[in-house]
């Protein structure tokens, strides 16, 4: 086990490496990371560090992990990462840590994670982030969850839920119209 300060330095370094413009450095960093889902909880804890650069790097690395896991053809990896993110979001960790996990769930989660996210619509501190995550997740499960919540949620939060439902129903009507010759 690396001593704490070295671990922090390594997190910062890894974030730089996974964002490198050199493919071989990125690949090596991802290989070193190993199983992505195993990194979600320790990095979430690190993201509330009082050492600001370390907290920022941990948050950035979590984001990189979420997007990596949600890449095309990696559904199981996305599912595993989503489960860990939901564990963080549902925990008693500081609200910003839980809110960040929910933000990332908006990118990684599919219908399987929706019931867990929907439960958080009842938790005042994170209900807005849960709503924003559900609004992003395509499919009927998240629509049903939002519709269900619109009937049971508290009055002050109901307009927010209704807004998400309206946004999901909106269909862009301008496809192709910008490419017409003047």
């Amino acid at each position: 086990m690396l001593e704490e300060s070295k671990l922090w330095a390594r997190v910062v370094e890894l974030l730089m490496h996974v964002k490198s413009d050199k493919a071989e450095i990125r690949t090596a960093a991802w290989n070193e990371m190993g199983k992505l889902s195993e990194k979600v909880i320790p990095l979430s804890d690190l993201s509330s560090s009082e050492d600001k650069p370390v907290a920022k790097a941990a948050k950035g690395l979590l984001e990189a992990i979420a997007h990596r896991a949600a890449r095309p053809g990696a559904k199981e990896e996305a599912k595993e990462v989503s489960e860990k993110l939901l564990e963080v979001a549902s925990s008693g960790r500081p609200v910003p840590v839980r809110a960040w996990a929910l933000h990332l769930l908006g990118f990684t989660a599919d219908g399987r994670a929706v019931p867990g996210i929907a439960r958080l619509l009842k938790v005042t501190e994170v209900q807005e982030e849960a709503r924003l995550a559900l609004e992003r997740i395509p499919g009927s499960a998240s629509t049903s969850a939002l519709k269900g919540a619109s009937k049971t949620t508290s009055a002050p939060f109901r307009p927010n839920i209704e807004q998400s439902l309206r946004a999901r129903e909106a269909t862009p009507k301008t496809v192709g119209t910008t490419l017409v010759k003047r």
Partner: protein
Amino acid sequence: MLKSNSKALLCLSAEKEKRGKALKTKNPITRRDLIKGSAAVVAGMPYVLPSGVIALPGRPGPNDRIVYGHIGIGGMGRSHVVADSCAALCDVDSNHLAEVAKTVKGTPLLTKDYREVLDRKDIDAVTIGTPDHWHAIMAVHACQAGKDVYSEKPTCRTIQEGQAMVNAAQQNKRVVQIGAQGRSNPMAHKACQFIRNGQIGKVNHVEVWHSNNWSGGWGTEKAPPLELDWDKWLGPARWRPYNSDCAHFNFRWLMDFGGGFIRDRGNHVLSVAMWCMDADTKGPVSVEATGQSNPNGIWDVPVTMQVKWEFKNPDWTMTWDQPGAQYDKIEWGAKYHGDRDTLIVSGGDGGCDTEEKAKRYSPPADGKHIFLDPYVTDDPTERHRQNWRSCIKSREKPVMSVELGFNVVILPIIANISYQLGRKLRWDSLMHRFIGDEEANRMLAQPYRAPYFL
């Protein structure tokens, strides 16, 4: 609070409909009526006359004065203020309001709520100079309220916002100009004619460069200053506590509000590039972006960034490089690589310049003559505004219409998404969607904070 705001937004369209019906049933007042009524102006009516009473609704006549409302007047938006025809000033910072109010004639409405500007029947057109995350929602609501719009670049923050803006402008028949004034810059025009007439041969690569994004700055989370309505500053964006390194000018270093130089000045240079490459009705087929994240400070745009867009039919590539080559020690610009020669175009906004060979060039009679509005002023930004004003009266498309502005801003939007996702993406320019990447498509829209919606 949220509920009442939401209602107010909905009321706006209802009121517009009511207003439209009322106007249809009345006989338009003639110019002679206006002259007869001029005594009333002296007798104490507002300094700025409602233009709607002297011409057809939404169509000021060729000699009519256009009445403006100005929204977002802390930065570039301040330069758009028309001192002798301003009916309203709007900014979420009361210091900005007080400063600009001193410079205009009469007693315009001063407000922190843009909806009050849109509700004014005497206002024909609005300028929007807010941070990026407000552009789309204000522009859409302005179009729905029957106002013509000059919105600062970049057009919007997301693909969905751009679609909504185009839709609103087309459905409501509004004149919407995007403030990418390279399209009104005679130097950019010279470069465009030079390239489009084949003077450097077939261009296969446009190399865009810019100095690095700013880095550093942790700021302090604290109560916002009294003059600033922080909740309104955030508007549709995700809530976050006030931090001085986030507000006002610094919005551009955060993805939630701006998106770095590539969306800021990048929008200028990319706009000129799309013009020179005759690519206003085309889009890339792929984008790949990498960059070095910022280890310190609250800002989350990368410090350095490299992007490659690929275009097909014809085949060419464009690259964005921070800090890049910085040819001739120029901070930002583009080098066009043709199969016979190259051309450097520095900047892309009001400060654009190019090489002597392009400046000296005039196309032959049967060559390609690119349109440039013939205004007599040395200031490209003013030329750009004049083009908008002229189009408000003629109802023609301005030189940087919302359709063109949207087509340009797609480039930095999808580049930032590629950077955030850490992978190359394929893009469908017709459908405005990524191909084969469901997660990337989740980033085409940004869920809004209630009660804001498009």
